[in-house]
């Protein structure tokens, strides 16, 4: 959270206020900067339209088709009283998997459903079209380094800007004796698309090292029973690459790259960038049957969902001069984009870590204890196996018990936490940027978050995964129509109504950081609304509470933390938002659990706390987890 050095006892927090834009057209392009700090002024326009998005300057209705792993959505945007509005969204099961492998079949069905529900007819009108897909976003990659730490860090900084899912990073420069066996086993266990090997010109024993690496890669490829082809990128000298090539057969595609002479910055490898981009495109094309038909329908190649999410997040960050974090938890992937008002953006995506299709991957990475800590009941082996096997056989099935819903959400928390940690670990020139926990607005999208039965469940998942501090506003792409915001012209024209149509404002969380004794007063709130006198609420440490509050013009919100806690302006100092916040669909979410969140080691105590949080927020029905009604 940006510090304010001028305010006395209160802190000015930039916030997201889309609804305020409806009040005065003159304010639409000029979000108010914080008057006490610098660097908050937003860039209010982004005229770039590089992805071939439809031009909304015309009055044509626009269709946005989004083909995902499980669902295909079509959104219809129409001009209503001069402004573009989301007129309808239709969702049908995707048809990208055998035996029906045709993405366009799902799009056609979604269009038919859209016509049925809205009465609009595509045949009668000329329309603009935009194609988006969230299938196969990234190239799954591991890194083997024979180079020194500096070279490895430079490579990693380069890779973090590319669409890859990082699996393993092996630093073989100071390896233990059994390193090669470990590397072999991990490579066997990992379904890689690409392997990057960073060579070391100074190594006297390079011939032995490269021979061993070549042998391992060949054994890994030979162990696969399919026609899997591994793309191997070798960064190092030409002689070493040539030597490595002698080991690899036809099933390994070797690309040799030489780093630029300037070693002070990131590796200058435009060839690596273009190679990864082309691999990602080829992978997407392979996983999206009838890709050409989908492209032909839209008149341009489908936009990757992560790119759409990234651009929308950047638009919002610049437009409102805030730090925006978008979380996308799809059926088979998880992604996050963090964008600062100055245009700095960090993004990460993990293919194969969706909470629906592959919870076992999340379990393998996070560990059972990490999943179990979010549950208010014992997770024995058989129950966990039954859940995972059920998901394996029926990935799109809805949970039929509260227990399985809670378990699904526990996996979701860990998937989100993984991707958020990945972003927080990113460095630029060795320096880290603002953590995700400092986001002013957190936007949730994707199948698991967007389709959560209760809105507070989506908020809880995002809160637990990100653990934001201070005041944070939450929004949700409930309809799955977020790519509609890609239509830059709509934003430029100042169409806040479209923004409100797409993003449901959920509420505001107030989360002090720091720790103190349990069950002692942690936070005192005064929430006022124009129609009634201010309401004062006191929340104890370790508790979560929901407070109905509409916010908006004329409302007030003030918070005073206990002396050991901090709302961003110093321990014990009171704070209030810079301008009017809106309570959204939920209101205020007071999260007095402290930061970093401390989940007790004692299992009984931890389960009791988790159950208490669930019940105090009304996140789940009041059922006991043995299946009996309380």
């Amino acid at each position: 959270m940006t510090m304010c050095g001028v305010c006395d006892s209160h802190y000015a927090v930039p916030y997201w206020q889309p609804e305020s834009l409806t009040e005065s057209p003159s304010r639409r392009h000029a979000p108010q900067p914080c008057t006490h700090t610098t660097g908050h002024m937003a860039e209010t326009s982004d005229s770039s339209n590089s992805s071939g998005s439809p031009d909304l300057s015309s009055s044509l209705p626009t269709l946005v088709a989004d083909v995902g792993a499980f669902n295909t959505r079509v959104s219809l945007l129409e001009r209503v009283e001069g402004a573009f509005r989301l007129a309808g969204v239709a969702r049908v099961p995707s048809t990208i998997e055998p035996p029906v492998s045709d993405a366009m079949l799902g799009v056609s069905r979604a269009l038919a459903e859209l016509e049925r529900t809205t009465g609009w007819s595509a045949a009668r009108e000329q329309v603009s079209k935009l194609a988006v897909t969230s299938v196969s976003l990234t190239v799954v990659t591991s890194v083997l380094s024979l180079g020194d730490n500096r070279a490895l860090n430079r490579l990693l900084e380069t890779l973090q800007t590319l669409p890859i899912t990082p699996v393993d990073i092996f630093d073989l420069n100071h390896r233990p004796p059994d390193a090669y066996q470990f590397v072999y086993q991990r490579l066997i266990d990992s379904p890689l698309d690409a392997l990057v090997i960073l060579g070391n010109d100074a190594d006297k024993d390079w011939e032995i090292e490269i021979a061993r690496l070549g042998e391992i890669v060949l054994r890994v490829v030979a162990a696969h029973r399919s026609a899997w082809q591994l793309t191997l990128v070798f960064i190092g000298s030409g002689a070493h690459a040539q030597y490595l090539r002698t080991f690899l057969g036809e099933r390994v595609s070797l690309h040799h790259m030489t780093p630029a002479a300037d070693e002070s910055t990131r590796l200058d490898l435009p060839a690596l960038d273009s190679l990864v981009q082309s691999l990602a495109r080829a992978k997407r094309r392979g996983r999206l049957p009838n890709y050409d038909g989908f492209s032909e329908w839209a008149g341009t190649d489908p936009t990757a969902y992560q790119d759409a999410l990234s651009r929308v997040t950047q638009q919002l960050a610049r437009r409102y001069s805030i730090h925006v974090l978008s979380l996308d938890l799809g059926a088979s992937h998880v992604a996050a984009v963090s964008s600062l008002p100055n245009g700095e953006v960090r993004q990460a995506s993990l293919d194969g870590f969706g909470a629906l299709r592959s919870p076992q991957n999340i379990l393998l990475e996070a560990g059972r204890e990490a999943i179990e800590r979010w549950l208010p009941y014992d997770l024995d082996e058989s129950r966990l196996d039954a859940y995972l096997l059920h998901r394996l056989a029926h990935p799109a099935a809805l949970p039929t018990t509260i227990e399985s819903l809670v378990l699904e959400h526990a996996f979701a928390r860990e998937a989100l936490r993984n991707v958020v940690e990945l972003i927080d670990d990113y460095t630029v020139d060795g320096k880290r940027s603002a953590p995700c926990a400092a986001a002013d607005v957190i936007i949730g999208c994707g199948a698991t978050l967007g389709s959560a039965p209760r809105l507070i469940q989506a908020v809880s998942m995002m809160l637990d995964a990100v653990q934001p501090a201070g005041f944070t506003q939450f929004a949700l792409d409930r309809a799955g129509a977020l790519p509609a915001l890609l239509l830059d012209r709509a934003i430029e024209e100042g169409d806040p109504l479209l923004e409100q149509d797409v993003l449901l404002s959920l509420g505001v969380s107030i989360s002090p950081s720091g720790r103190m004794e349990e069950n002692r007063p942690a936070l005192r709130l005064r929430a006022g609304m124009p129609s009634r006198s201010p309401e004062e609420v006191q929340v104890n440490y370790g508790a979560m509470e929901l407070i109905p509050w509409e916010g908006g013009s004329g409302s007030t919100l003030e918070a005073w933390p206990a002396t050991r806690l901090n709302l961003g302006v110093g321990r014990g100092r009171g704070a209030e938002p810079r301008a009017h916040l809106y309570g959204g669909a939920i209101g205020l979410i007071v999260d007095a659990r402290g930061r970093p969140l401390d989940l007790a080691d004692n299992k009984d105590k931890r389960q009791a706390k988790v159950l208490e949080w669930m019940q105090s927020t009304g996140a789940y029905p009041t059922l006991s987890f043995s299946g009996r009604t309380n």
Partner: protein
Amino acid sequence: MDAVHGRVPHPLLLRENELAMATMLALRGTANPPTPTPQVGRYLLRLHRVLPADGEISVQPGDKVEPHTLVGTCALTPQRVVLDLASLLGVPPDRIEESLVVAQGEGCAEGTLIAVHRRFFGLRTRTVTAPLTGHVAALSSRSGLAWFETESHTVALPAGLYGSVIDVTPRREVVIEAEAVVVRGVYAIGGEASGNLTTVLTQSAESDERLILVSREPATIDTLRRAYQLQAAAVVAPSAVRADMAALGMDPLARPSSHTWKGPPLLLTEGFRGQAMTDTLWELLTAQPVSWATVVARPDQHLFLLILPIRSLAPKDAWTRFGPGSRLKRAGASAEPGEGRLEAFLPFPIGVPSGLRLSAAEMIDTEERRSQAPISELEWLM
């Protein structure tokens, strides 16, 4: 041939980035709902048969192919093992060539002595044996390494099903189009295989006939071991218990790439709780006129398919004579109102009493009225 398993490795190789068995176009609007168990439907498939490396394609567009038809062959790079001879023998790198007791390129069996170094009149002798059956391919006097490699082997790529070649990518890929019935399972492992469906494995070691064992009861360790011993092409079972699968090296909750099961592909149609096969599916798999089938088991791509020739769902020979849109009339009826066109064979399952031998078809008469007619009463006009 695969020396270990006695059968052709990689029977039907697929390109990873393709959606495996590749592009399948829906013939009718019966797209898969998200969680079918199992799902059966009639589809127009386009199957990409891809060689793992550049090789020779032996068919042309327009060719009719049968399951056994070889559509391509290629040679795969041999396995290479690096031996640090200098360290193993305790000699300087430039002296390892003197230590070899077999010539470079000379074939030797696994365990054969390939290098020896004697010191102190033979009192301290170090030896190196062949790690695999193969030959010493190269030596490096700079590093003291030796490359030991196996013989290259040829991969023969069969078509795997009845169909027509519609496209060929030289040296690499064949696209086969086929009309087929597809059963979508809930899980499968082991790659791909084709063969004749059977309920009892009586295959002798000498027989070339490849059989896919269909079990109505859950697969057990014994079932799968027996199928392995008898060299079954694949096993189709309703369910299996995770512990049994894990014991055989195919834990469904482990990453697919870490599976060690080398036996025939296994396809589950119901789940993991010991369910039995449904009557309708059992009838489909055991009472069809053409018993050839292909199992596609690609857990890394969530691809669990059993593909049957389209004739499986219709009276024998019927599919050679008619299809949707064909004009037909009821036997013995006059042109009006008995004449009409075939809309569809009734999709499976809709409670056809006799199971899956389709007994009825949906027809639309000249006044666009739909009706169901027993196939035996229909006369085909074209």
